[in-house]
């Protein structure tokens, strides 16, 4: 019998980052199912399928070839079908301008990629736990902004 789990998607072109990310989740006590895509095009192809299972949280790297994170974010926000997903930007940039711009465009979470594994685990755990509260405790998602 399958247990409850949280469905998560990451789009990132860096293989190491994808690996760290999935490893971090596999070590958390929260049960999750993590799917990864290599760039924005692959991601949107998946999401736009009619029967695509949408994740609770989508993590987007900003710098990706073919279609970058910001372009994907704009597409997602233009389509009401994706309203239930929380969007987390997962980037190496910590420029204030960038951060505010992505929030204004509709991102809920901004994570500066941590350089060590333990911090990454802590950050991802915090994000998923808080997101879970938005999911289950009737909080207003429009006001969901979190920077880590």
């Amino acid at each position, binding site marked *: *019998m*399958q247990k*409850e789990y949280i469905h998560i998607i990451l789009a990132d072109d860096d293989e190491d980052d994808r690996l760290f990310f999935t490893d971090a989740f596999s070590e958390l*006590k*929260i049960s999750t199912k993590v799917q990864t895509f290599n760039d924005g095009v692959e991601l949107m192809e998946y999401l736009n399928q009619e*029967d695509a*299972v949408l994740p609770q949280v989508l993590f987007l790297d900003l710098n990706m070839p073919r279609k970058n994170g910001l372009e994907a974010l704009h597409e997602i926000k233009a389509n009401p079908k994706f309203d239930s997903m929380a969007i987390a930007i997962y980037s190496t940039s910590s420029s204030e301008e960038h951060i*505010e711009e992505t*929030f*204004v465009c*509709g991102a809920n979470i*901004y994570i500066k990629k941590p350089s060590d594994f333990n911090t990454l685990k802590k950050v991802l*755990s915090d994000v998923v*736990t*808080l997101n*879970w*509260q938005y*999911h289950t*405790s*009737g*909080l*207003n998602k*429009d*006001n969901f*902004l*979190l*920077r*880590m």
Partner: protein
Amino acid sequence: MKAFLKFDFTVLTKKILEEKLSQWGLKYLITGFGEVEFLEDIPEDKLAEITAILNSYGIEIIENQKTALVQKIKDTIIEMVFSDSPPTVKASAYLADKLNHSYGYLSNLFSEVTYTSVENFMIIQKIEYAKQLIVNDKMSLTEIAYKLNYSSVAHLSTQFKNTTGITPSQFQRIIAKRREIANTK
């Protein structure tokens, strides 16, 4: 010959539920994530029958007292935070009294089920309320700090920043810009 199969349990479960529940003529809503809401009350004998049949598919109805109590804790906290005349006793005493369990028991149970603490949940709720007051009621931080029982504006700002990673004024600016964009569409 041999065929290899791959399953998507979410789809599978949903299909089975849809098929069975419609077959029994029930009005229901699959709210996702292992949750079905029945729009009408179901008599007990019928519920037992349904439970038995779903069990044969490996689907179980959780009658989990713990989960139910955690929901009560949440509801009580939300009611406390959003109330116009919040209780004068300490939150821990209020919860214990209202739910008839020791605070130690409640707080352990809460952490076990939600992966977050009662204290933390309370802070999240207070900050949510603050956000709402900033956005919808255009209240000043001083007014909000007073209303939510913070000892000072600085205390509120710090807790806001610690919880969300951004300052109240950044929050206000981002939401204002989003609304501007939405209005020009």
